[in-house]
């Protein structure tokens, strides 16, 4: 007993002693699922080799809204964590409040700006300051398809939305649910975002979803987006209410449904079942003349703190995150691709490789776009209006013209 106690005391003494050596950094984030935690461990281990301890503060739930809540109260009480995971406009908005540490010196020394796609900088810089280190990049506009169903029905990977809808109708006649999804606004939003750019081009997407140009919002092109969304609704079964996205992915995996529109976090579900891309399942971008790459990134921002050991740890953490080796290790587990464009594509699966290629093309073609539904286009007060209208339209029987009218009024009301 006394031996046990002694070892217990030794163990509890050991951790803070090691931590005190170089410094500890508390990181607030909302990653709690197994693959997310495993991916974070890549960062944590690299940080430990530099002699710093990672203190984990995970607040899960509500797609990060709970973690944001925790951050607010921490900032209000003057005790911010060393680092925080940022999504969408959170980083720039906190930077405007003057609470985020500028990492510009590190960014210049490390050539971060050159290593990242230029479109990304909106979310990791604020004026001249570099405010967050991006670790990964998910793509929102993927289609995941059951290859066996496609082959049996003689369907090829569709090149246009018209092809895709025709294929869906054919499958429906055969008694297969063409599209698996749930009724959550963000799941509907994924399709809406894709249609905005796929039907009308990336310039239209920028005008409508980023600049909120009234002429683009109230246009025949927008009506067309809703018309097509209505056709997609016809490809979804009636039991879609309350269905989790991972359940929908499961329907594609076990052959109940043919396709799902989902970001590349769905890939993990296929891989976990031992399925192989292009032999068991297809992954392809939502079809368009100019294929778009609608990105979602996770980045870590550092808060202004007085404690010098934490400041040192912040530098170490930022450098770790931007390390190409760490980005590779992290993303191999997380299912996304590195935010840096100079990481080698070896060891990644075929879907990720396709993502790498299409990202390079999209950067050139100007079709590298922030995914609105996940907060990387219009600010949340506007993006949520798009989400509301698309979701209400999708589940009800509103006409496309009414939806456009509702959208225009809603955006004006939020301005």
């Amino acid at each position, binding site marked *: 007993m006394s031996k046990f106690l002694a070892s217990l005391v030794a163990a509890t003494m050991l951790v803070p002693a090691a931590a005190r050596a170089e410094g500890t950094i508390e990181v607030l984030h909302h990653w709690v699922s197994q693959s997310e935690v495993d991916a974070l461990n890549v960062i944590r281990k690299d940080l430990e080799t530099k002699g710093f301890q990672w203190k984990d503060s995970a607040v899960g739930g509500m797609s990060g*809204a709970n973690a944001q809540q925790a951050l607010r109260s921490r900032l209000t009480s003057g005790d911010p964590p060393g680092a925080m995971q940022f999504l969408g406009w959170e980083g720039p*908005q906190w930077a405007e409040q003057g609470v985020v540490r500028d990492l510009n010196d590190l960014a210049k020394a490390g050539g971060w700006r050159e290593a990242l796609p230029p479109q990304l900088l909106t979310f990791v810089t604020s004026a001249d300051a570099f405010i967050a280190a991006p670790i990964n990049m998910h793509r929102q506009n993927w289609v995941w398809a059951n290859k066996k169903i496609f082959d049996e029905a003689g369907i090829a990977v569709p090149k246009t939305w018209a092809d895709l809808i025709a294929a869906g109708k054919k499958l429906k006649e055969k008694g297969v649910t063409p599209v698996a999804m749930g009724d*959550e606004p963000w799941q509907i939003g994924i399709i809406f975002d894709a249609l905005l750019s796929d039907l009308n081009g990336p310039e239209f997407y920028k005008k409508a979803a980023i600049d909120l140009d009234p002429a683009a919002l109230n246009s025949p092109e927008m009506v067309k987006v809703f018309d097509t969304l209505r056709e997609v609704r016809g490809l979804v079964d009636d039991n879609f*209410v309350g269905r989790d996205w991972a359940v929908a992915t499961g329907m594609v995996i076990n052959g109940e449904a043919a396709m799902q529109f989902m970001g590349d976090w769905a890939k993990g579900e296929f891989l976990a079942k031992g399925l192989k891309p292009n032999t068991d399942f297809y992954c392809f971008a939502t079809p368009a003349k100019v294929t778009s790459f609608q990105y979602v990134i996770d980045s870590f921002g550092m808060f202004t703190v007085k404690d010098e050991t934490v400041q040192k740890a912040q530098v170490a953490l930022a450098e770790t995150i931007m390390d190409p080796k760490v980005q590779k290790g992290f993303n191999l587990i997380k299912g996304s691709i590195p935010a840096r464009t100079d990481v080698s594509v070896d060891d990644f699966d075929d879907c990720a490789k396709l993502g790498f290629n299409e990202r390079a093309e999209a950067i050139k073609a100007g079709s590298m776009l922030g995914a609105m539904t996940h907060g990387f286009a219009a600010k949340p*007060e506007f993006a949520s209006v798009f989400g*509301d209208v698309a*979701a209400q339209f999708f*589940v009800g029987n509103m006409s496309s013209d009414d939806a456009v009218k509702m959208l225009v*009024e809603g955006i004006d009301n*939020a301005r």
Partner: protein
Amino acid sequence: MNAAKSFSSRLAGWLPRIVVAPSLLVVIVTVYLFILWTGVISFTSSKFVPIYDFVGLEQFVRLWATPRWHTAVANLFIFSALFLLLSTGIGLLMAILLDQNIRSEGFLRAVYLYPMALSFIVTGTAWKWILNPGLGIQKVVNEFGWTDFRFDWITDPKMAIYTVVIAGVWQSSGFAMAIFLAGLRGIDNSVIKAAQIEGASLPLIYRQIIIPMLRPAMLSVIVLLSYIAIKSFDLVLALTNGGPGSATELPSTFMFSATFRRNQMGVGAASAIMMLMTVAAIIIPYLYSELRERNNG
């Protein structure tokens, strides 16, 4: 001696106040001060973080121009009215039936009261599956052979709010029953006997004598259930998550998403103040009349 005595008697007089003071202070700060603060925020242009400027009623105008808010308010009235009416009605009926000296009453009472022990999250999740046309009631009935039976309210934006009522009533009517049952047990049997001797029929006795005597129990039930109705945030979240679309949005879910997810802190605060006003407008006159009568009587 005299001074010491008066000190201890004074202390005795002050002691209850001293003991209550900390909790009173906590309530004043965490409830009333924050109500005041929310009121202040509702008159500002706050978005992501609080900004202390003054923009008048702008946020209220914006709030009432938001279609989702109209849906939320309409839903609150539909939900609260039906929830209160059905829970109270079913609770009262069950209490009266259980009060007929039946066998294994204790067991039945526990069965009906048990749902109250569940959290709304559990209730919501369970009913989400029960009401899903592909998993629950509709599927079972269809498989029994009645193939064109339809019960898909949860997928219909117009009907979805009634599924929230169903789940809420299922959970809370047992609770109403328990309170009514306690009330029934408190009624003096001789009153009923006297009425029977006078030749009153059983329904008449219930309508004219027993139910009016249950008035204090009725007050408790209504106050407790209305508060459950207004804070039924978690039930909606688990059952429909505000969907399909935003068809089952309630003011509470609207307020949460405006404030914490949509960068519209000012609009969120305005909606919270509207909720407070609505509740106050209903509850205060009711409490006032009930409590005054009791003081007079």
